[in-house]
């Protein structure tokens, strides 16, 4: 599968997504050039029309599965890839479009499309791992370029990548951020959200929005109880806090559902 000069081949695939994760790779020009020296980018339609036939050593998959065709296509991608890594919240948790999993697809479809009957769509937007085995999931909306470079370096070296699954709070403390939740009373999802962003939002005095999805041991129920008690955040607002880019990640899904039940 290696190309003529021994570089591993890489394919970048798109499913239901905004292309933001692919763009974060494209816009990281320096890294992309370095990556392109070490691997043969054999299939990346967002970047080039040149296509080298598979199979591929590494596939990076962006987007969620929302149509019957895509459910088929991802099986094919898996079949022709030695290593499959999902990139971003869509591929890893269904993305923002998984908000439809909480509503009625037919109702949405007839509102949006003139001829809804010709739009083939699955009831839910689902993560890639619900369809095929995934070797590694890279979180974030969008992904962090540094993490992608780290994962590719790790695959090339045949080692374990450094992509910790602990909370964003660790990154806050490592970079010396003052905690916005404690020092300012700003609701912050950092304690239940997986690290990877480098605690970017708290560094700019914003609460974490949870775009990297739940931690390894999330306890959103306790965080919600505290936000309600101390900051007066009500149930509809708590529901919205968890129902964003990772709305369908299990820990966030069950927590937002809980606030649905108590919300008026």
């Amino acid at each position: 599968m290696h190309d003529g000069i021994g570089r591993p081949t890489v394919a970048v695939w798109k499913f239901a997504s905004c292309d933001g994760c692919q763009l974060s790779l494209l816009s990281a020009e320096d890294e992309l050039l370095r990556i392109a020296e070490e691997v043969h980018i054999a299939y990346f339609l967002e970047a080039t029309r040149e296509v080298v036939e598979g199979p591929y050593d590494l596939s990076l998959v962006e987007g969620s599965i929302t149509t019957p065709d895509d459910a088929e296509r991802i099986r094919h991608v898996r079949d022709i890839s030695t290593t499959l890594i999902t990139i971003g919240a869509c591929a890893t948790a269904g993305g923002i479009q998984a908000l439809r999993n909480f509503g009625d697809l037919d109702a949405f479809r007839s509102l949006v499309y003139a001829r809804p009957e010709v739009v083939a769509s699955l009831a839910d937007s689902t993560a890639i791992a619900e369809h095929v085995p995934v070797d590694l999931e890279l979180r974030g909306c969008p992904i962090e370029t540094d993490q992608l470079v780290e994962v590719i370096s790790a695959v090339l070296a045949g080692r374990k990548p450094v992509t910790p699954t602990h909370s964003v709070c660790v990154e806050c403390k490592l970079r010396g951020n003052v905690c916005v939740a404690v020092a300012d009373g700003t609701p912050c999802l950092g304690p239940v959200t997986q690290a990877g962003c480098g605690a970017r939002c708290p560094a700019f005095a914003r609460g974490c929005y949870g775009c990297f999805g739940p931690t390894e041991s999330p306890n959103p129920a306790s965080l919600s109880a505290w936000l309600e008690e101390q900051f007066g955040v009500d149930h509809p607002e708590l529901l919205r806090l968890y129902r964003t880019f990772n709305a369908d990640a299990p820990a966030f899904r069950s927590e937002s559902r809980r606030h649905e039940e108590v919300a008026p």
Partner: protein
Amino acid sequence: MAGPQLGGAAVMAVDELDTLILALRADGYRVVGPTIRDGTIVHADLERSSDLPQGWTDEQGPGTYRARSVDGDAQFSYAVGPSSPKEELFPPRQRLWTATSDGDASFQVVEEVRETPRIAFLGLRGCELAAIAIQDRVFLRGSYQDEVYAANRSDTLLIAVECGSPGGTCFCASMGTGPRVDDGADLILTELLDGDPRFLVRVGSDTGAALLERLTHREASAADLDAREQVVTAAAAMMGRTLDTDGLHDLLLDNLDHPRWDTVADRCLACTNCTLVCPTCFCSTIEDTTDLRGEKAYRDRRWDSCFGLEFSHATPASVRTSTKARYRQWMTHKLATWIDQFGTSGCVGCGRCITWCPVGIDITEEAAAIRRASDPTPADLPVPPTGAR
């Protein structure tokens, strides 16, 4: 005039703080002390005494911190913030070595060159001096000496300022680490606000004595010493929290199955904040990475916490999978097994873990709950958050 020697006491005017900072900087020290940033009193490099948070105080409680400006001349009228000397002596991230490959199978390992920075800590409280002493024991006095910590600690100067304004989460008096400071620092200052604002300066080392020589000072009077006594006595009576340490070691270790661990685990987010702000917690993990070309490999060390799942990873899986097991590890280590390991408690009563816990979990309250009942009644157990696991 020959100034006070070791153990002696003098008085200096408030303006002399500036002279002190300039003198230290002239000697090549970084002066690390409190300043106000992002509405919080944190440690930073000080250039002049005007960098100190003069006119600021703080209000602290479980999960909450607010700095507030106040009238008056006080320079040190606040309790400890989230920073501690740990950040300088045992930095959050340290590179240990880099390996370079020449393309073939051979490679070279280059160890990091360890600088020995001159750091003068200004404004250390009793709890912070005690925390440094504990980390000295952990990193320097065991069978293994930590070279990163040793390098950072090798040329430090400690200038304490006794605490006159403990916060809502402080309990150093219970832990015997403050507010009174009698040794462990090169100079020990006490801010006296009765009458003319001034500092009582006591000498804790020859370096401290030499430093005092360079400041304008007079001999301390009995009235000055009296005023200091009043400051620390009043502070000791103002502790926001208490912890009954009597028999605490056995109490905790005899109650490893107490239902209270379940209650606190329902609240705990396993977020690690309590351990990372704790001035004595010393755990780290190793991160091995390589560059894209595969020409360089790096070994880095960064802070870690027993609240992480990976922390107890032992092939094939993590040992402490529940938050209950992890909270129990943290608290029993701080208050009990630390004593077996290092001969003192691992807690100095600074209150940081209480203030900076995003859901306000209070180590003193958790210990008290276990003490209250070995056979707890429902009234002893707080109501868990709605829908908690």
